[in-house]
Every structure is written in C-alpha cells, then in structure tokens.
C-alpha cells in the first residue's frame, strides 16, 4: 500500500531522444491509474521508470515515503506484469511464483502460503506443477498476475497485460483484474493503448501524448469533457467528429453561443441523430456513404455536403436509411465540444 508521487519526471535517452518530458502525478494509496495514449507517447517508458527498468534522467519519484530514483527494481517494493508475461519457461508455475520470494529470503512455509493463496485467488492451483508451455494464453496471464500478487507489493505495474489475449478472454481478465485490485486495495499503474480497457479499469485516467500529460481525470470526466482535441479524439469509440466552424458558418449551420476563440466543434457519434430533437443547435445536410450494422447499434458514415470529411453517427438498432440517401443530422447544444484548433485546447 503506498502513495506514488511523480515530480517533474524526465527521460532523455543517450541518443538525445526525449521520451518523457516533465510528468507530475500524485497517485493516492489504493488508486488504479491507467496510462493511455498512442504508440510512442511515453506511457511504457513512464511505467518502466517507475519499475526501475529505465533510469530516471530528471525529477523525483517517490513510492511510499521513499525517493526511489536510485533503487533497483527489486528494492522498490513493486511488482510488474509484462506484456508477454515473461514467465521462466524452465520453471514450474509454482517456482515461477516462488522465485522472487526465494530471492528475498522469505521463509519456505511463508512462500508456500503465499503461492497457494495467490493460486487459489487466480484459479491456477491445479496447474502449479506444470511448465508455462503447457498452459493456455489465459492461464499464462494468470501466472504472470500471480507472480506479482505473491510479492504483496506496495504497487502493481501492468504493461499492456491483456494485449496478447483474444477478445473474449480480454474482457474476462479485465473484469478479474479490476475486482482483484479493488479487493486488495493495492495502488496500481496500468498501461494500455486500448481505450475501452482504460475507461473501464481506471479510477483516474491519464492521457499521454508526446511524453507529456494531456489530461488527467476520471474516465467519465474525460469522456464528457475532453480538455483537448487530442483527448477528444482518443477517448470514445467511434472517435469524436470534428467539424470546422468555417464550414458551419458557410452552410449557415453555426450553432449560436459558442465561446470566443472556437474554430472547431466536436460532437460524439452518439449525440448526432437523424431526427430533430427538442432543441437542435445544429443541423447538417449530407448523404449516407455507408451503413455499418454492429449488432445492438449501427454506425452511419455520412458525407456532408461540400465537405470531404465523413461524419460518423451511432444509432441504436438498425436505422431505416439507404446508402446514398440524403439525411439531416441534428445535435443539441449541450452535446457540442468547442475547441480552438491552434492551441488544441477546449474553449469553454
């Protein structure tokens, strides 16, 4: 159990590449923080800096009450779950779990107790005598989790732990990780590029871009009120539609009363509808380019008149519109996200 404080962390690689530039974050005890961002945004580097696998070239990192900048990974009281699990192939599951504890000099009965407990929790007790290669992907993932669990660390670090699993198993493990983390109340740092994973797991979500924090907040805060164009485009699927104010003014469709400086309007695919609601602030004409049924919902790709950029609309069920049909898209005022394209920031 520990609080993790990052104070102005920097990482510059010997070649001069700056992977992390000035990240400050205060993670409360027991909190589940998800770091999310596109490839190369520095999220894995940041996690590995916390783990001690990358040196910290600037700033201070505190885990618990200790500054751990100079400590070896094993001395930081953390446990890490790797993307490809990194199980020791020549050791049985039991020994995989016990290896770290043996190195720490934990007495044998205590090792046994912890391994059995973790194995029970993760339902791998039947496989303790097997080698990793005799396990399925999901079981390996559990062993990797178990290896972190037995250490009873101050913090868990997850480096895209579910990305090698198939979709079904991923959802299942995601739920289990969250339940486990809540039950144990261990501070956790979780890296992923999957925004659905990020939204569902996080107490607080940290969106990284170019080695810096774009926005920090609860998943719903970020979803409802993205602070930057980047976050708006990254969180939510299908991605938020971005429409130029200039285009709207040309078409006479500019919504009234947007904050000054707004030249880009974002609207989520869910918030657009084919029928005018109570108080539509914006009406856009276009033609249906493609209808994509996706089970409980459908995605309609609409090409706006005089604008090449397609707009995505998400509607429940299967709407009765034909491809090539002319439609009018409506959105209420409160669903519009005003941005300034130069600064990339939200204007109000």
């Amino acid at each position, binding site marked *: 159990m520990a609080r993790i404080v990052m104070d102005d962390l920097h990482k510059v690689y010997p070649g001069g590449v700056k992977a992390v530039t000035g990240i400050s974050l205060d993670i409360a005890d027991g909190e589940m923080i998800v770091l999310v961002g596109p490839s190369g945004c520095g999220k894995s580097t940041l996690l590995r800096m916390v*783990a*001690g*696998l990358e040196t910290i070239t600037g700033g201070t990192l505190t885990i618990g009450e200790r500054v751990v900048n100079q400590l*070896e*990974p*094993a*001395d930081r009281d*953390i*446990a*890490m779950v*790797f*993307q*490809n*699990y*990194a*199980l*020791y*192939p*020549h050791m049985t599951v039991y020994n995989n779990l016990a*290896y*770290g504890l043996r*190195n*720490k000099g934990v007495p044998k009965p205590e090792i046994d107790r912890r391994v059995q407990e973790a194995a029970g929790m993760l339902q791998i007790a039947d496989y303790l005598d097997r080698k990793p*290669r005799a396990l399925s992907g999901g079981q390996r993932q559990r062993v990797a989790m178990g*290896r972190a669990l037995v250490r009873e660390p101050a913090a868990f670090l997850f480096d895209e732990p579910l990305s090698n699993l198939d979709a079904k198993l991923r959802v299942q493990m995601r739920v289990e990780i969250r339940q486990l983390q809540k039950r144990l109340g261990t501070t956790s740092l979780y890296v992923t590029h999957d925004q659905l994973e990020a939204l569902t797991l996080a107490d607080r979500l940290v969106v990284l871009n170019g080695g810096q924090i774009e926005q920090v907040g609860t998943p719903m805060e970020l979803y409802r009120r993205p602070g930057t164009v980047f976050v708006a485009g990254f969180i939510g699927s299908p991605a938020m539609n971005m429409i130029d104010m200039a285009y709207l003014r040309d078409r006479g469709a500019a919504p009234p009363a947007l904050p000054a400086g707004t030249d880009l309007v974002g609207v989520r695919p869910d918030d657009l509808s084919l029928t005018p609601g109570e108080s539509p602030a914006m009406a856009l004409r276009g033609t249906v380019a493609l209808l994509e049924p996706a089970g409980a919902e459908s995605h309609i790709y609409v090409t706006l008149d005089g604008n090449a950029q397609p707009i995505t609309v998400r509607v429940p069920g299967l709407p009765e519109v034909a491809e090539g049909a002319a439609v009018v898209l409506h959105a209420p005022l409160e669903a519009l996200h005003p941005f300034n394209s130069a600064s990339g920031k939200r204007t109000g």
Partner: protein
Amino acid sequence: MVENDRFGSLLAHLILILGVAAVVFPVYVAVIASTHAPGTFLQGVMPLLPGSHAIENYRTVIFEGRAQAGAPPIGLMLWNSFVMAMMIAVGKIAISLLSAFAIVYFRFRFRIFFFWVIFLTLMLPVEVRIVPTYAVVANLGLLNSYAGLSIPLIASATATFLFRQFFMTVPEEMLEAARVDGAGPMKFFKDILLPLSITNIAAMFVIMFIYGWNQYLWPLLVTNDERYYTVVMGIQRMVTGGDSEPLWHLVMATVVMAALPPILVILFMQRLFVKGLVETEK
C-alpha cells in the same frame, strides 16, 4: 516436392547410397583389417571379409601394447585423450558461456573491441599460431601436462558466438522480470540463462569433445613423455615409430578403439544434441 516420381526417387536414393558408401567403406576396411593376422596386409591384397584374429589382436592392443612399436598400452592413451577432450569441452563451454553473457548483457568500455578480438581468434586456429603458442606453453613449463594439452585449445570463438546468438533470442522481459524478482546478474545467469541453454550446451559439448578428442598436431608437439600420449598421436607413432614394418592389424584395432568414445558420446547425447541444434522454442 516431386511426388510419385519413381525415377527421381531412385536417383536420389542412388546418390545417397553412394555417398554413404564412400563414407562407410574406409571405416569398414579398418574394422575388417583389425581382425586379420599380422602378415595379411603386406601381401598387397586387402581382404574384405573378417579374419579370425579379432580377439587376439584386440587383446594385444588393450592389454599388452606394443612397446617395441612405440605404443604404450591403449588404456592410458584413451584416458589421456579422454581427459584432454573433457578439459577442452568443459573449459570451452564455461568460458564461452561467460564471455557471451558479458557481451550480450553488459555495456562496458571496448565491448565491441573485445567482441572483434574474439572474432579474430576464429581466423587463428592452433595450426596457425602453433610456434608462439608452443613457446608460451614451454616457458610456462606446461609441456607434458594435461594443462599444456588443453588450455591453449580452450578459447573458442565458435561457442561464444553460438551462445551469443542464443542469448540474444532470450526475450528482454525475461531479464527484467528477473530484476524485478530480485535476481542480480550472476543469479540471472545461473537460474535463468543456464537452464535455458542446456540443449545448446549439450550440442556444444558433443562438438567440442570430438574436436578435443581428434586433436593431433598439438599433442604431438607438447608431449614427449609416454604418460601423456593421446590415442590419436599414438596411432601415428605406431605407424611411423619402431624399426619393424607397421603392424597394420594392431594399428587398425587401435583406430577402432579410438573411434569408440566419440561415438558413445554422440549416442548418449544424441537427443539433446539434435534438440540443441534445431530447437528454437523458448
């Protein structure tokens, strides 16, 4: 892949059988020759069927030796060869593992330089550096000793490279997981890397054992005391030494005896050996 092509299949088999025959025939002749009476060879006609003196010839070679022909009893020579081959194989593997470990996992000054130095030794086998190496061994007083027989042959670029290649295929995360688990470099080497390398080590052992066993020129040079003769050079001495005609039947019996230990090593380690050369699974 050609299927149901009788002619192609026949031709392929013919070539293979010819190839096998070319390799096997001399061995066969050696075995046959070791079963004939002393004079048979000197008649100029090679018999192709086994003779009746097998037991007698092998008894002579194993228990009596032929002192007048320059050969000590074969038991001692086999033992010397065995000790030398073992020292070379084990020494090479130990040193190669450690140097490959250093090159792959540590960032030290002149790492690349040392890498190339090791690489250079590939181009300098014993035969090339034999005079300076002899001088060094002689000055160290290692002539007529097991150390002198094996140490100059121990450094091995080949094995270092094999292990380096293997280590580079071990995922980086394995090292990181071990670091998080509190394993220092040597602990990682001992607990993770060594067990993973076991099939490679077995393959290397077989190759290096035979390499050591078959050493000829070097033992010939650094030993002149019968107590340190190896079996391969013993054969040579049996052919050229002594005043009489070479005792071919005994030479051939010795040859057969000398070929046995490497064959045994291969037989016993075959499974691991093949696995080590072909297996890529981690």
